């Protein structure tokens, strides 16, 4: 919202300025599309690099476990990319022309902490965990297998927990009030 307002701060409402607004809107549209495409490219580059190193493996220096690690990373990136794409589309294409009740319901669903898309993130998180574990497993042979697995989890799980807590805090501060408000209005509207 702020971004849009800054975009057209000095815009006043008459004829000639409509043209300038249109130009700015077109620029914003193409900027959004660019950001989205750039992000997709980043994922694609990761997938190609990991696919090349671990799966195609031109130097034939990777064993079966390395290849499995590569597959885990690539699948993780693909799912992350897909979830990002979904989120991006959902947030950038909020349809304000829906009836108010429908708009409120969508907002309430969008700002739900435990929605299906959030749960899907668990899959790439586990895949990357499996990839790192397999990768470490075959290197630190001085440790017992359980110690090697434990070592990865000691680093990985706290990182995940901290990231999750930061996410929940941001949700609680920014999105929960919006969801509560939307639900309250919806309740008032329907009763």
């Amino acid at each position, binding site marked *: *919202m702020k971004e*849009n*307002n800054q975009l*057209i701060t000095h*815009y*006043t*409402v008459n004829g000639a300025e*409509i043209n300038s*607004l*249109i130009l700015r*809107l*077109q620029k914003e549209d193409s900027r959004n599309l660019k950001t989205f495409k750039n992000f997709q490219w980043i994922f694609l580059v990761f997938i190609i690099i990991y696919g090349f190193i671990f799966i195609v493996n031109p130097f034939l220096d990777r064993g079966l476990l390395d290849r499995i690690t590569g597959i885990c990373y690539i699948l993780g990136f693909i799912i992350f990319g897909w979830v990002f794409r979904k989120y991006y589309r959902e947030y950038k*294409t*909020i*349809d*304000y*022309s*829906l*009836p*108010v*009740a*429908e*708009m409120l319901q969508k907002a309430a669903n969008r700002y739900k902490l435990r929605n299906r898309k959030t749960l899907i993130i668990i899959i790439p998180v586990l895949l990357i965990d499996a990839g790192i574990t397999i990768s470490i497993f075959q290197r630190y042979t001085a440790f017992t297998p359980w110690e090697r697995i434990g070592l990865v989890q000691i680093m990985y799980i706290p990182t995940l927990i901290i990231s999750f807590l930061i996410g929940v805090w941001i949700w609680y501060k920014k999105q929960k*009030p*919006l969801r509560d*408000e939307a639900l309250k*209005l919806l309740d*008032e*509207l*329907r009763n």
Partner: protein
Amino acid sequence: MLLKEQQFKQVVEENRDRIKRICHFYAPTSEDQKDIYQEVLINIWKSLDSFRGDAAISTWIYRIAVNTSLSFTGKELQRLKLNITKDPVSLHYLLDDEEESGLKMKEYQLNELEKVLNQLSVIDKLLISLTLEKLSTREIADVVGITEPNVRVKIHRIKLTLRNQLKGNSHEGK
């Protein structure tokens, strides 16, 4: 893109007053009105591709204007202030009272009305703003997304509340 541009200009041109009135209802200051107006235009631009003509253009515009106004106020929603034009005819739409709502209505009574309106809940304010726009029950139902009977009941209830509160205030005034 050229077609979208022309369509956008035409829609804005034809609905400028309508959008401005809705912005006026929800924004306390002229600066806020300008901000909401800009935001409504941005959302019209964004939604233009998805307009398939299923709803009347006026309904579509009202939806965007109302949704944007609600989103714009965000967390401040409870403090959302409804501004009515100091026009005695408005009173007629709210109170269904021919005698009382004549042009003789005094300004202080309209101010009272504005005060009472601002004690209403956000949804009631929303329904009243659309009533003041002279939308039919059917059109309000289309904009808000609830059934026509539900709109009728709600508006009837709001009008009763307004009438009672205004009567109470006028007795106190005496």
